[in-house]
């Protein structure tokens, strides 16, 4: 074993982790090499001095400060969210997302987007009879409404030629999903 190898394996040697054969080689090298003996002695002396350093102790106010913080922790802390609460929360989230996805896939979506860009009319599904859809939109610009204004979707304007005529049976009102209670 040379010095380089000895230094590489020194930690394992010091901790008694080398195999018996390797430990014998290391001991042999140590007996023959003055430089490595000095290195070994330096480490041992240094560690001995390090372990004799007086340990620092906590200040007198440590316990009192900790107790104060723990009291605060007990009174102000947000209740711990149990793993079951987490699971229920996740389930509710999945149900909500599923509901929204189902609602959008159904072609209605939420009122705002649909109302903001009214379309004139379109044919819709019906048993054999063509149907017209009349789109609705807010009569006023909702962004300029004061906070205490009435519900913006109450006043509506019907954008269709049939607005002035009584609605025939084959005209269907295409209202936002939230209005339909779904």
């Amino acid at each position, binding site marked *: 074993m040379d010095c380089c190898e000895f230094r590489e394996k020194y930690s394992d040697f010091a901790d008694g982790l080398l195999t018996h054969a390797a430990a014998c080689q290391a001991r042999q090298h140590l007996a023959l090499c003055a430089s490595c003996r000095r*290195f070994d002695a330096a480490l041992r002396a240094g560690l001995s*001095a390090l372990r004799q350093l007086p340990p620092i102790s906590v200040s007198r106010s440590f316990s009192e400060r900790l107790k104060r913080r723990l009291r605060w922790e007990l009174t102000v802390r947000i209740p711990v969210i149990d793993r079951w609460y987490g699971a229920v929360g996740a389930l509710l989230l999945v149900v909500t997302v599923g509901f929204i996805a189902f609602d959008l896939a159904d072609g209605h979506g939420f009122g705002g987007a649909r109302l903001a860009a009214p379309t004139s009319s379109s044919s819709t599904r019906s048993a054999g009879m063509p149907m017209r859809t009349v789109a609705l939109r807010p009569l006023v610009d909702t962004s300029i409404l004061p906070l205490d204004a009435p519900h913006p979707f109450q006043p509506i304007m019907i954008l269709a030629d049939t607005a002035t005529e009584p609605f025939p049976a084959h005209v269907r009102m295409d209202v936002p999903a939230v209005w339909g209670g779904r």
Partner: protein
Amino acid sequence: MTLALHDSLRAQHGPRAALAELDDAHVVQAFLDGESRAFDELVSRYQARLLNFVYRTIGDRERAEDLVQEVFIRIYRHLHRFDQTKKFSTWAYTIASNLAKNELRNRSRNPLVLFQTIKKHWEADHRPLQFEDSRSRPDDLYHRRHLRDLVEETVAQLPEHHREVFVLRELEGKTYEEIAEITGCNLGTVKSRLNRARNHFAAIIEPHLD
């Protein structure tokens, strides 16, 4: 089981002494069973050990004390989630180690904190001589004090990752496996860092040996 053991000890020795007789795992269980004094017992067992570990890692006593407070707050907050098949001490040291690493990271980003730390060390170097054992010879006293200062400085000079492993092994007496768990490294990395730290440490001490 724990409650029964705790109750019998309590009947024999009183509440405080009963907790002192228990090992960490039983003290933790006693706390989880509603014995609030069990937490005080954990604090009294670990406050000095954690303080010394954090102090040796970050080199600032006051800040180390703040961080140890934070360690206990986190323990208190999350003790119900602690995996009781593992050692409590390892968990506590892991929290302390992570906080110390965060502190060093923040410090390296904040020049003001770095300056204050350097200034504090400078002031410590200019402290008045402290009289030690008057029966020792003056040159012995000088040599001992010099070596003590030297090893403190040497530990502080070690690179952060090496220093942490070195302190855990040489001062806290942790096993390689525990160090691996605390630092989040594998065993090979722990061994390699410890070997480098020891080599570095010995190389600095060697010229001052005589």
